[in-house]
């Protein structure tokens, strides 16, 4: 390899917060990723979209090392996640915020303690400072007044905002949002969009959003990737990707049942199963 190639490779690594090459994952006979290549640019907001069951959440789990791919290379901030040991993964995860689909708040702790949890586990900050940080994050998601509520007393949208406050409590380098807009009312949705954008602009945090709401994504994302059939089938600007003319984008953004993504789960012939027609 020439020196020029070396430097361009390392520059690509530096520009990418997440870089996947030839990622392959299967659950039994079901292929999730079939040689997926992907670059998530540093300091940008990238949205990952795709039909249900295409492995978007699995991809986030690969990025955090919760789930190892069968093969392929996956670099996060230059570190190969597939080869990190437990300590290495935990060190990396301290730099990553993760918003779970179902919020995953600790049910034994109130809202305040949930947000303070990562700080208490990894720092020895004085209580005054912990309180200031927690209240700042809760204020950012509009739930400072709910600090003493227990998770069971929160609505789904509120729980999601608390989980978001917890995910950003360390001001991580990378935040992974798994379906962040589900269950939010329009006011909370706008505030969360604003918050994602503000975190990105003020702190330079790289954000990865897995979501289905194209309108919200068009407002906030810099870059969109459409994952289907085990690969990235389309990528580009969120405002123009729907018009790129490929059958994947036409079907997905047009909401059509006919196209490369089958609406029906593989099954035997319908008529035969009903006992009608030739198959009977």
């Amino acid at each position, binding site marked *: 390899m020439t020196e020029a190639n070396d430097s361009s490779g390392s520059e690509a690594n530096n520009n990418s917060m997440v870089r996947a090459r030839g990622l392959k994952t299967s659950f039994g006979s079901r292929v999730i990723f079939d040689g997926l290549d992907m670059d998530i640019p540093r300091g940008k907001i990238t949205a990952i979209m795709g039909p249900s069951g295409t492995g978007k959440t699995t991809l986030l789990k690969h990025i955090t090392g*919760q789930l190892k791919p069968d093969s392929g290379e996956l670099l996060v901030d230059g570190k190969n996640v597939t080869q990190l040991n437990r300590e290495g993964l935990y*060190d990396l*995860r301290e730099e990553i915020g*993760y918003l779970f689909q179902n919020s*995953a708040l600790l049910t034994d702790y109130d809202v305040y303690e949930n947000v303070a949890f*990562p700080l208490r586990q990894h720092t020895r900050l004085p209580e005054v400072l912990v309180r200031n940080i927690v209240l700042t994050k809760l204020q950012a998601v509009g739930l400072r007044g709910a600090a003493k509520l227990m998770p069971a007393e929160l609505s789904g949208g509120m729980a999601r905002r608390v989980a978001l406050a*917890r995910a950003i409590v360390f001001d991580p380098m990378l935040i992974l949002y798994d379906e962040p807009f589900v269950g939010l009312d329009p006011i909370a949705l706008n505030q969360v969009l604003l918050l994602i954008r503000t975190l990105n602009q003020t702190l330079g945090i790289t954000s990865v959003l897995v979501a289905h709401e194209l309108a919200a994504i068009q407002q906030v994302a810099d870059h969109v990737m459409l994952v289907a059939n085990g690969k990235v089938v389309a990528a580009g600007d969120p405002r123009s990707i729907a018009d790129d003319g490929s059958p994947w984008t036409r079907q997905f953004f047009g909401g059509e049942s006919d196209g490369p993504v089958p609406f029906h789960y593989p099954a035997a012939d319908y008529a035969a199963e009903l006992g009608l027609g030739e198959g009977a």
Partner: protein
Amino acid sequence: MSETAKRRNILLDGLEQIGDAGLFLPTLIAAIPRSMRYFRETVRQLWFVGAMSLIIIMTCGLFVGMVLSLQLYHVLEIFGGTASTGTVVALAVYRELGPVITALLFAGRAGTSMTAEIGLMRATDQLSAMEMMAVDPIAFVVTPRFLAGVIAMPLLCCVFAAMAIFGGHLVGVTWLGIDNGTFWSNMTSNVDVWKDVVDGVLWKGLAFGAVVTLISVHQGYTTPPTSEGVANATTRTVVASSIAILALDFVLTAFMM
């Protein structure tokens, strides 16, 4: 599936569970130094599995002692040996009934709640959230519960035995009229502190505590993240713990004889 195949599957599943729990134990023990960071969590669990189990343990201990004394008095009366009622109550409670019944109650009261709690944490992604926050769920959630169970069980056995002897005294002396001095002097002269109390109550209590808590936390940690999975895991905790307690009791008794 044929009946033979079903039985073979149940047997294989049982063996797999035992093997898996056996492999889980070194993971738990290896996490003990890391879990010392969360000492307050161990104390909190000790309060929950130990102190909060006191009422059921004390009540059951009292009634076991009372019924034992009542039965023994009428049997021993046939041979003119009612003066030995206290001794037999004490030996039965120290050697067998104390640790075994305490462990069975502990499995039903604390073991099931540990399984259900950890299982629900698994089902609601709380354990994954901890991993994502770089907090080891084995060290933070599982090991403190294991340590609390191992510490609490011998103490609960002592409380059970004390209450059972008190119950035996209540029925034997206060109700049936055995002489108070005879009751205590026969008991103290025939009960050996090391062989009966330490081996019976403390060692068996410790062993049962370790086994019941290991089964409980293992079932919770490995449960499928569904409501049915949590329900099945809770049932398995009671069934597996009960069998393990009785089987281990025989093995320990055989070694201690």
